[in-house]
């Protein structure tokens, strides 16, 4: 009799333990970091440089050679955000120095070198913003992968400017949308 009671009690205890353990919730931390990636590139004509051809002193708002040579007068200067990107981009622009005469020290001031930017290839228009040796954020912001930032450039040649070839370097920098240049 006692043996049976003991077996019954043991069975009940075992059942209770099984139920309790089945109801116990096990937790673990799940964590993942998703990489960010973005690629920006320059169109063919922008890669070849921003050229102005041969200009006369005392002329203003001279177009860069590819400002209007796309279909329907579109600009063919653009910065492309690759579709192989997962962050949106703001575009910044600067130059290293004013346009400086090759083999000389004469310059065309940065205030004479202007640009404008848009996400539409027909939209960049005068008046432009003078380029600077510090990065400035353009109006082309929050651009997603597979889209472009279109640019046009203009140059004023001061009267009496010393003849020659004038050069500098223009940099386009992408930053994640919302970040400063």
């Amino acid at each position, binding site marked *: 009799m006692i043996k049976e009671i003991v077996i019954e009690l043991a069975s009940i205890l075992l059942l209770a333990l099984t139920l309790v353990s089945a109801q116990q919730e096990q937790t673990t931390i799940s964590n993942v*970091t998703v*990489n*960010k*990636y*973005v*690629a*920006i*590139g*320059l*169109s*063919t004509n*922008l*890669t*070849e*440089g*921003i*050229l*102005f*051809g*041969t*200009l006369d002193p005392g002329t203003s708002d001279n177009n*860069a050679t590819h400002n209007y040579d796309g279909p329907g007068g579109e600009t063919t200067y653009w*910065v*492309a955000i*690759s*579709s*192989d*990107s997962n962050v949106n*981009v703001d575009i910044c622009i600067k*130059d290293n120095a004013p*346009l400086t005469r090759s083999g000389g020290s004469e310059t065309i001031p940065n205030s004479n070198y202007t640009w404008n930017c848009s996400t539409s290839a027909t939209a960049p228009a005068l008046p432009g913003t003078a380029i600077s040796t510090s990065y400035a954020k353009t109006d082309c912001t929050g651009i997603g992968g597979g889209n472009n930032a279109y640019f046009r450039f203009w140059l004023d040649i001061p009267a009496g400017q010393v003849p020659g*070839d*004038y*050069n*500098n*370097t*223009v*940099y*386009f*920098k*992408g*930053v*994640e949308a919302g*970040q400063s240049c």
Partner: protein
Amino acid sequence: MQKFLLSLLLFIIWLAFLPIVEATVGVGIKWKTESEIVKEGSRVCITYGLYNPFDEDVMGFLKATRDLENISEAEEPKLIPAGTDSEHAIPTQICFTIPKVYKEDCLLFGYFCERKCEEEQVVFEGEVVAAYQLKGMEGTGSVTGSSFAVPLRLLVECEPMKRNLTPLYFLIALVVLLILSIILRKRIK
């Protein structure tokens, strides 16, 4: 002759309708961190991925800006072949040598020092920029180049240090023993 002219005409028409070949040039960057906790006096290397989904090979490189510029050491420019997608980004390192930035209060010529870490945390802040080598050009105008900047903050950890005076106690004990032994020797003599 007529056949030749017709062929030539057809060839010119075919050429006119060929799509304009656009060769975008640029570089891409893949990253997983924008801030790291580092120890002073250490060398920390961070790996980024450089890729190039565009049409021309480039010599890509990393460089650091602002506070990070003077403490950084990047790899030489390396070939990033055209058509390299982000999944096959080429690992590229940039390393930082973290200087000693927190004050130590020393008792004796740089020995027996302690550090309480009561100052504000030192942070080296700047950008890691992915760029590529530029080509030259002729005529009036500007050479152009593009890059992408990723923010990076290196937060320097301060490790508090208690002054360890044990070697000083040993030294004092040694000096005392030496003096005692000299006195004893003199008395015996």
